[in-house]
């Protein structure tokens, strides 16, 4: 396959950046998208040019590193995959492929196609955990959990934090990511203890970082490589409303310490 690539090139976080057109020839339809990028980079290196910087790690759809906005869609044209799972047979010989980094104010471009997704880590730090003492592994069935809840929680926990939801959203909203992280705990008894505090803090952090608001458009759900449902967003809204209206205020003087 012979292809024309229009790739966003940006030297560093402060430089302006522009699209550069490259031709790649004799690409096997069975190669993956990232292998095609590797071939391009090898040719760039042999020509003494700077290779295109892009994030990648596991190359099996688990890590969520390979953030590329391909022809107007995060992770390209296929449903429920990451870029590394995309194959060149999805394109036609002679196609032009436009490759861009995620675009969102909280995801600044570091170089070429690499963006800084620290914003997601900050949201997790704000409440995406449960406070338990470390120790031996608890017995698996010590706390009985209905299968339905366990399944929904596991579905939410499938989120790999790739940021495709933010990239796809016309508002660069992080609602799907945050709602998955809120839901995976809110559905389980271990997570209920800090549920109100968690949703308040994570939503506040999301807003502070400058992500957009949710318009219930559904682009996030359509592009999520792990098919996280926007029903999680509704759950987060519920959790948030209940936390605001009904949850008891945490008592600072409680507990055994001071």
């Amino acid at each position, binding site marked *: 396959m012979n292809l024309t690539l*229009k790739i966003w090139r940006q030297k560093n976080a402060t430089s302006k950046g522009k699209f550069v057109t490259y031709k790649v020839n004799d690409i096997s339809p069975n190669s993956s998208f990232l292998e095609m990028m590797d071939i391009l980079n090898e040719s760039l290196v042999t020509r003494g040019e700077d290779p295109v910087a892009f994030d990648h790690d596991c190359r099996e759809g688990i890590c969520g590193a390979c953030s590329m906005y391909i022809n*107007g*869609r995060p992770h390209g044209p296929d449903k429920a995959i990451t870029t590394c799972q995309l194959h060149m047979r999805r394109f036609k010989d002679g196609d032009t492929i436009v490759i*861009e980094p995620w*675009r969102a104010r909280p995801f600044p471009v570091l170089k070429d196609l690499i963006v800084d997704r620290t914003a997601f880590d900050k949201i997790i730090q704000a409440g995406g955990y449960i406070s338990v003492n470390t120790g031996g592994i608890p017995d698996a069935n010590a706390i009985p959990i209905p299968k339905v809840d366990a399944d929904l929680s596991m579905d939410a926990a499938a989120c790999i934090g790739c940021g495709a939801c933010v990239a796809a959203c016309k508002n660069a909203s992080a609602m799907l990511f945050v709602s998955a992280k809120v839901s995976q705990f809110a559905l389980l008894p271990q997570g209920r203890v800090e549920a109100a505090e968690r949703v308040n803090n994570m939503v506040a952090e999301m807003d502070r970082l400058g992500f957009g608001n949710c318009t*219930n458009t559904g682009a996030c759900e359509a592009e999520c490589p792990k098919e996280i449902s926007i029903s999680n967003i509704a759950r987060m809204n519920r959790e948030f*409303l209940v936390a605001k209206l009904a949850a008891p205020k945490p008592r600072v003087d409680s507990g055994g310490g001071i």
Partner: protein
Amino acid sequence: MALKYSSITKKVIMALAGLFLISFLIVHLGINLLILKNDGRESFNMAAHFMVTNPVIQTMQWVLFGGFILHILLGIVLQLQNWMARPQRYKVEGYSHTSFFSKFMIHTGAVIFAFLIIHLVNFFFRAKFGEMPHIMINGEQYEDMGLLVIEKFRDLPYVLMYVVWLLFLGFHLDHAFHSALQSLGLNHSKYTPVAFGVSRALAILIAGGFILIPVLIFIS
């Protein structure tokens, strides 16, 4: 004030105001359809009279104004934040599978708002502050709101303007009911598809019902 609220709080207020505005549209449409009744505008004028004299309705009118203002102002605030969240746009974008009209709520909303001002000047302010024709019903004198409507809709440009306006209202409503429920946290594997259907039905029935009035008046 609006800037300090969290994104979810803003969306919840937006949804509640929106649902209230939908209920207003249904009442408004119900009364308007009375004008198509062939009784010399009697029932329409009686209904209009009830609406301007009933104290409950008059109080609700202020709530309605509040609802409009909240919905519009929050809509603008949310949209500005959304635009700011992506300072650099994509070269190629929007190929994700999404609900179509949801992407243009601010645009359809702006069109609806612009025409709303013309609409208020034409009818609401005219009836409130302007000179009104009168009609005798059962020996009592009533303001003839119906005549005002019928005279306006004898003009083809007016009729066309209203049809276009109401089409945009329909587009806006297509992403209204189910979206409001989602914002309020009401999502259900079985009932959410129903809510989508209700949303589409409301859009077609409300916009279609309103469009019927100027078109039928113009034809007759």
